[in-house]
């Protein structure tokens, strides 16, 4: 027997559970912002990036996690204490990492749509782009529901990357508080990330254009679902100690 007990881990890590829930909710809302077009978008027949929600969420989440992990290493170098202000910096780094990934994906995707496929980016969900006020309807090809990534989708996607990266980094920091083991924390953060990315993607049924899409109004349902799922994952996650703690090292 070691001195690590389940109740002790639960009671001592209440702030981490709350942090994991907040992170999970950030991811859930972030998924709704990312313009995902699915298979139709891959054929330039729908607005958005031409792949599934989970692939995009995983891509931006992992990039954010890498950035956050590196920042965490820098912040905690020499055994420095990682407090709230350091966590804010780490989460900002993760958010920027995820935003870069998703923005590059959208930019290069748009090059392919514009110069490769030869279609103008246009949304079929709105007659006018809410940001640039450009008319959309004349540019939507007949028989499609839009194509490419117009400005509003790009902005929305960047916000989605920000929230996803923020949530993923926050979960990683909270787990590092619990077990101080980067390997266990990162793999667990990925697990929680995936659960919180897939549930909202069922909510939007696989495709969404961004915050201007009528499907965006379904966000509350995803928040309720992801709150319960994150609470469950958080409770389980904070009970997991690191191998060093089990050996009596911490």
């Amino acid at each position: 027997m070691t001195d690590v007990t389940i109740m002790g881990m639960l009671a001592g890590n209440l702030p981490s559970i709350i942090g994991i829930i907040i992170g999970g909710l950030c991811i859930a809302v972030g998924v709704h912002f990312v313009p995902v077009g699915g298979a139709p978008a891959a054929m330039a027949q729908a607005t958005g990036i031409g792949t599934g929600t989970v692939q995009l969420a995983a891509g931006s989440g992992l990039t954010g996690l890498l950035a956050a992990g590196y920042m965490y290493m820098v912040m905690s170098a020499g055994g420095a204490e990682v407090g709230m202000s350091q966590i804010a910096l780490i989460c900002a780094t993760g958010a920027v990492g995820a935003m870069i990934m998703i923005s590059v994906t959208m930019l290069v995707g748009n090059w392919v749509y514009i110069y490769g496929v030869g279609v103008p980016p246009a949304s079929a969900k709105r007659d006018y782009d809410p940001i640039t006020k450009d008319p959309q309807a004349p540019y939507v090809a007949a028989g499609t529901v839009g194509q490419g990534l117009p400005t509003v989708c790009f902005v929305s996607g960047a916000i989605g990357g920000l929230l996803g990266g923020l949530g993923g980094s926050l979960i990683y920091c909270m787990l590092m508080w619990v077990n101080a083991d980067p390997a266990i924390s990162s793999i667990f953060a990925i697990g929680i990330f995936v659960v919180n990315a897939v549930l909202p993607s069922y909510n939007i049924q696989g495709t969404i254009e961004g915050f201007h899409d009528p499907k965006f109004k379904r966000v509350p349902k995803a928040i309720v679902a992801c709150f319960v799922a994150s609470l469950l994952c958080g409770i389980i996650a904070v009970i997991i100690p690191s191998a060093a703690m089990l050996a009596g090292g911490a």
Partner: protein
Amino acid sequence: MSVAAGGEAVSTETANQVDTKGIVVGLVGIYIAGIAADAGIPYLIFLAGIGAVFATKMGADAVRRVCSYGIGTGVPSIGMLALGMGLISAMFGLALGAIIGVPYVGPIVGLVVALVIGFIVGTLANKVIKLNIPVMERCLMEIAGAGVLVMTGLAVMIAGSMDFAVISEKVITTGYIAPVFILGALGILHPFNASLGPDETQDRTLVHAYSVGAIGMTIAGVCSIATINPIAGIISIVIGLAIWYANFMGFVRLVKRDAGAGYVGTGLLPPGAM
């Protein structure tokens, strides 16, 4: 998915049979491998891989049943969800075994936790998000359970132990957890993703699940060369490749059987086939 049908999948092997085989073979394989490795015989670790192959088949069958209703996000999402839930539960089970000092409870605790998480997530998906798929709760329980058994099986194969500290050192810190995660997810999501469509048949999908599961087992065997014992690793690789070969050839045979218009190796279809 645009190709999704809208209804219950036709099965020749019932869900209960597949689940029983998956859970029993999965757990027995993991336990024999783990106990034998602790007793100083690492050569039986391939049994954990065989357990993982059967668990993969159980997950693939559940994916097949739930995705035949059309979930709108593509089949891969549910495979990632499976391993996301499976990863959390598997690590929790193994860690709990370490906390209470009895490593052998790990896989069973992980399985039970996965079933609970799967049920809750399935209920959330059905009742809150309103997917309204009648088999959702049960299938997500099976998928999460399969995720745990695949994760635990492959992790035990690589670590040669059920002890959380050893698995943490040899599987997680070394990064072998990444191929375990993605190969486990592929084994569960790929068979139906590759076979879906109006002419999908259960035996073809499940034979494919065996072959993808065997690829995971082979890769885990390669990893175990470095972590446990070269001979044990090579035994796992040879058995994994044999399972893969037999099942992939079976898959090709069933593809030919199910090909509605006949088949040719290359070129145009023969006259009359159209």
